[in-house]
């Protein structure tokens, strides 16, 4: 809410500077989110005193002036000016070089007809202060203002932008805020006058109101006016409305808006002659009924909406906007003024469905005190009479004139003190609450009975009173206490192992990306998958088609990351993303270790690690290879990740690139499997069609791993003693038929070599005449660690077992 300080001061004396007042309000829960100087949309304009004025040597219509702009702003400056109202001694606004005027007009030092001008003297229109363009805006003549002072602070109106919390509808007005300020400064609150001098004609002879559903409209008050002369409202009212962000329209309409801002009561004025017999009905709209609102849009209504109607048709949307047919205009002479309370949720839902949120609907949503409509209708009647010369009809049409009993809340003093961490007693609570309008009386023992003022609809329990006490005591005076004992039992941090994976991968040279969990159909299609897959989790109300589906795999995110870098000619890319993937599998319990069962049946989310590599295998450098990354590089990274985590390295198994791996090269797709042969990830080269669809080029490779399963493989460290015996190295050349998976060869070698084996690795591959067509020779190196020095016999036995197993399982020939 925009709060012009000058307006606020009508209701309470404020001695504080704007900044101090803003801090004070914020500390009381009325957050000032911005301090503006309305009508001062400029910078670099200071007060200058005219010291000397003479004709410009080269131009008859221009003047050359010398202006004192104060020491800080540059002392005496020569400024060329074209205005004809200059006199020595005047105080004028001087825009210095670097100043920015409304409309982004930048002032620079410049030469005008051969004479340097160090800035510009401003007219009212140039500063946006008014329509006057004829002369310089004269700020004064005497010593009342010192040269160099900021003109913005001199003439601008300070407006606080106050963010009133949703539970404090009572503070959504000048009087509401003034009441808060009065409570914490001890100043008096001055309510505006609502004394109406009524005419002889009884309002109820001209207005009647029938409420069909009192739940939706608990209070409806109305007044009736005749002899209205509806011109523009007075200047002072227009200025205030403008400062508060409202557009002036006509006296009657402006009064309703003025009182809404002043007291917080939304109001509406109807042209009484457009309401047959003055008969008003408050009812639900009928399905399909329509109404042209005063913004001249025809709106189709339904029965969830509340309308103000005449005997037949709707004439207004309750609490939101009036209808065009009863709009008050220049010719209006008789007026019905409505000041009512409508059901907040109904107003909110209607406004939302019609896209018609307004200042009025915002106030109805937050709730209006029962006694406010009647006071407000009188206040408005007084202002309408004053501004339009109208005669006010006698009496108020009111469906529920009897006052309500006040709400009472019981609180325990000790309990509230314990909650706030401050010392409290009954006397202190009373002293804190009474200025806010609460009445406190003892209720036995530790208990107090607190009577809530009628405007505080938000206070219904002792917790609410605790907050009031804290506000009144001052949050700044609550002692900050350092954490005390009573720690919970230790449990490991579930996110720490994931962070370990991140750090390891960064150490291996990969960059982390965090991509959107929500992706689009196009992303899925481009990656080669079915966007209509029933296992996808879709949104009912996506922000856009690009973010409508929760990703079920990492590939679209990874390829998106590649594509983004390709756009900026960044070809060497190694990225990983550790985040959730999501799915819907109502029937089959999935084999994944689910991170969590989510709400509803069959939906899951699971931590997944995606890796993608593209571009050169080695950074460009003299002697570096030009080779592009391949699947082996990717496996190297995955192996290293396992090593660093302390998990056994996985095996890689070829896999048909079926629908589960549609984004991969069919001959270069594999599964990442654990020692028991269970897959927990997949990897491979990206399919050339998918590469082309994403426009990335090259031959990128990608992998995806189930993070929960990966982490479950991490074993504890059981340290072994280090023998003081030299290791023994042996190499074998193993010739097998082309097509035999080398992974199988290494697995057989590893499993048959016995307990002394430390390491097996492949170090060469040979194809050629020496071994014959259709055969491959793999050179494999073994390192054994014997228990005792010189024990070569047991190692020869182990190698023989390896040879035998390779022959037996793979038909290998050993050389």
């Amino acid at each position, binding site marked *: 809410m925009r709060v012009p300080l000058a307006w606020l001061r009508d209701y309470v004396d404020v001695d504080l500077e704007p900044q101090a007042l803003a801090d004070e309000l914020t500390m009381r829960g009325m957050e000032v989110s911005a301090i503006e100087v309305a009508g001062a949309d400029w910078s670099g304009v200071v007060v200058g005193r005219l010291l000397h004025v003479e004709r410009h040597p080269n131009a008859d219509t221009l003047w050359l002036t010398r202006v004192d702009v104060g020491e800080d702003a540059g002392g005496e400056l020569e400024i060329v000016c074209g205005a004809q109202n200059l006199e020595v001694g005047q105080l004028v606004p001087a825009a210095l070089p670097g100043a920015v005027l409304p409309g982004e007009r930048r002032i620079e030092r410049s030469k005008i007809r051969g004479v340097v001008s160090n800035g510009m003297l401003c007219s009212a229109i140039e500063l946006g202060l008014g329509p006057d363009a004829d002369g310089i805006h004269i700020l004064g003549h005497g010593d009342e203002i010192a040269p160099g002072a900021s003109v913005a602070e001199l003439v601008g109106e300070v407006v606080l932008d106050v963010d009133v919390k949703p539970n404090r509808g009572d503070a959504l007005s000048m009087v509401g805020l003034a009441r808060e300020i009065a409570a914490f400064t001890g100043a008096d609150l001055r309510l505006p006058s609502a004394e109406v001098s009524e005419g002889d004609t009884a309002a109820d002879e001209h207005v009647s109101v029938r409420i069909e559903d009192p739940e939706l409209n608990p209070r409806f008050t109305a007044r009736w006016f005749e002899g209205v002369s509806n011109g523009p409202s007075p200047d002072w009212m227009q200025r205030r409305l403008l400062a508060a962000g409202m557009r002036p329209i006509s006296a009657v309409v402006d009064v309703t808006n003025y009182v809404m801002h002043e007291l917080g009561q939304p109001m509406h004025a109807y042209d009484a002659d457009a309401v047959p017999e003055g008969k008003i009905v408050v009812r639900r709209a009928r399905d399909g009924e329509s109404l042209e609102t005063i913004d001249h849009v025809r709106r189709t209504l339904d029965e969830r909406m509340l309308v103000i109607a005449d005997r037949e048709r709707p004439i207004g949307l309750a609490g939101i906007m009036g209808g065009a047919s009863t709009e008050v205009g220049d010719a209006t002479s008789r007026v019905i003024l409505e000041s009512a309370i409508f059901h907040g949720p109904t107003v909110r839902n209607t406004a939302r469905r019609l896209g018609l949120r307004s200042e009025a609907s915002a106030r109805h949503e937050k709730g209006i005190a029962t006694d406010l409509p009647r006071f407000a209708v009188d206040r408005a009647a007084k202002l309408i009479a004053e501004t339009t010369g109208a005669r006010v009809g006698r009496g108020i049409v009111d469906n529920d004139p009897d006052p309500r009993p006040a709400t009472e809340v019981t609180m325990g003093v000790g309990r509230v003190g314990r909650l706030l961490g401050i010392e409290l007693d009954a006397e202190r609570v009373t002293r804190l609450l009474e200025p806010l309008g609460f009445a406190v009386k003892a209720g036995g023992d530790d208990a107090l009975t607190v009577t809530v003022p009628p405007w505080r609809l938000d206070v219904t329990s002792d917790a609410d009173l605790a907050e009031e006490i804290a506000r009144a005591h001052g949050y700044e005076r609550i002692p*900050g206490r350092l954490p005390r004992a009573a720690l919970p039992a230790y449990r490991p941090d579930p996110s720490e192992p994931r962070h370990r994976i*991140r750090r390891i991968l960064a150490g291996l040279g990969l960059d982390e990306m965090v991509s959107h969990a929500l992706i689009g159909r196009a992303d899925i299609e481009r990656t080669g998958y079915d966007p209509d897959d029933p296992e996808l989790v879709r949104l009912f109300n996506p922000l856009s088609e690009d973010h409508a589906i929760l990703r079920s795999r990492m590939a679209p995110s990874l390829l998106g990351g590649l594509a983004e870098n390709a756009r900026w000619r960044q070809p060497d890319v190694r990225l990983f993303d550790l985040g959730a993937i999501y799915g819907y599998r109502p029937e089959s319990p999935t084999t994944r270790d689910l991170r969590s069962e989510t709400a509803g049946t069959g939906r899951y989310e699971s931590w997944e690690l995606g890796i993608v590599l593209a571009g050169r295998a080695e950074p460009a450098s003299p002697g570096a290879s030009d080779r592009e990354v391949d699947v082996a590089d990717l496996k190297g990274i995955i192996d290293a990740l396992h090593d660093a985590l302390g998990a056994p390295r996985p095996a890689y198994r070829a896999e048909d690139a079926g629908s589960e791996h549609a984004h991969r090269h069919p001959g270069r797709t594999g599964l990442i499997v654990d020692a028991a042969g269970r897959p927990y990830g997949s990897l491979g080269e990206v399919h050339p069609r998918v590469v082309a669809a994403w426009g990335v080029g090259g031959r990128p490779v990608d992998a995806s791993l189930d993070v929960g399963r990966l982490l479950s493989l991490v074993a504890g460290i059981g340290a072994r003693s280090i023998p003081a015996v030299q290791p023994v190295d042996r190499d074998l050349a193993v010739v097998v038929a082309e097509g035999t998976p080398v992974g199988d060869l290494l697995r057989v070698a590893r499993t048959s070599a016995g307990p002394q084996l430390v390491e097996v690795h492949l170090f060469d591959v040979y194809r050629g005449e020496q071994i014959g067509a259709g055969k491959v020779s793999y050179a494999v190196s073994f390192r054994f660690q014997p228990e005792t020095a010189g024990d070569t016999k047991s190692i020869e036995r182990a190698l023989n077992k390896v040879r035998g197993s390779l022959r037996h399982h793979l038909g290998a020939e050993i050389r």
Partner: protein
Amino acid sequence: MSDLGAELEALRARADDALRAAGTTEEVEAVRHALLGRSGELTVLMRGLGQADPDARPALGRLANEIRDHVQAALSARAEELAVGDLAARLQDEAIDMSAPGRPVRIGHLHPVQTLMRDLREVFHAFGFEVFEGPEIETEAYNFELLNIPPDHPARDLWDTLYVAEPGSIELGQPRPAADGTILRTHTSPVQVRAMQALDAPIRVITPGRCFRYEAVDASHASEFFQVEGLVVDRDTSLADLKGMLEEIARALYGRDVRTRFRPGYYPFTEPSVAFDIGCLVCGGSGCPACKRTGWMTILGAGMVHPEVLRNGGFDPEEFQGYAFGMGPDRMTMLRHGIGDIRLFFSADLRFGRQFAEGR
């Protein structure tokens, strides 16, 4: 002197000449071989000592040994002399251009928001907080009702929440929200209730995670973002404890000298509610566009857990009380690094990501 003696003396002189002439270690080796090898001159002469006159034998033996020692020493000395020269020459040959660049080693970079969240976890670990995680696909009940946000509360608006569609309804062209009320969580606060339901008092947890909002995306708003929620439940944890904790957290994150402001706020699931500010990091509090001239930046919302929420978590509000707070790591990261556009966090652009070295 016998012939043998003269031969030995002559040999000594020849050896000295040969060594003087030897210019490389290889030539020195050849001299060694010619004199001391299996059929070397000295070896042969010494073998002939047996046939010498027995009277002259001891003197000749001494002379032979003396000459052998002399030759050996001279060989070593000459070899050593030459090796030093060889090495010097080699080292000179091997000089490289020391101004040449190093062979590149790739390093990776962590995402700045993830790094900030790790830093937060470290700070909170130090205060005895544990990490407790909840699902991103939530129910309306946990996201709203159990947090004391009734169906008519503005936060429940369709416009703020992303609803999961009923399976199959979109494919059939009749989209409707899932019948089981699933949504994407709009905040991490539902994890408060889950933590209370799962744990016994005392509870001291933080609940980091991804959240989703139906929010038009611009430089300062994202539809996906992260939150870190904190929850403490105990018998006498008070607003004063909350204040002390938040002040300590601010000092840990922004330095011991940070100015803080603890003020009233509003959340349906806390009462009293708190907003927590730090002095503007851009202008230091004098007022600037970044803080809208207020001098303060809000980094955190908090409050005492509402009695209804305690009840929903299985705690009797007459016996237990506690506080909760929530913060936005994305915004905190923007403040930390002076990042002006929140959308960069969901970009894979390496020109952005590679700025964030571990040590910074």
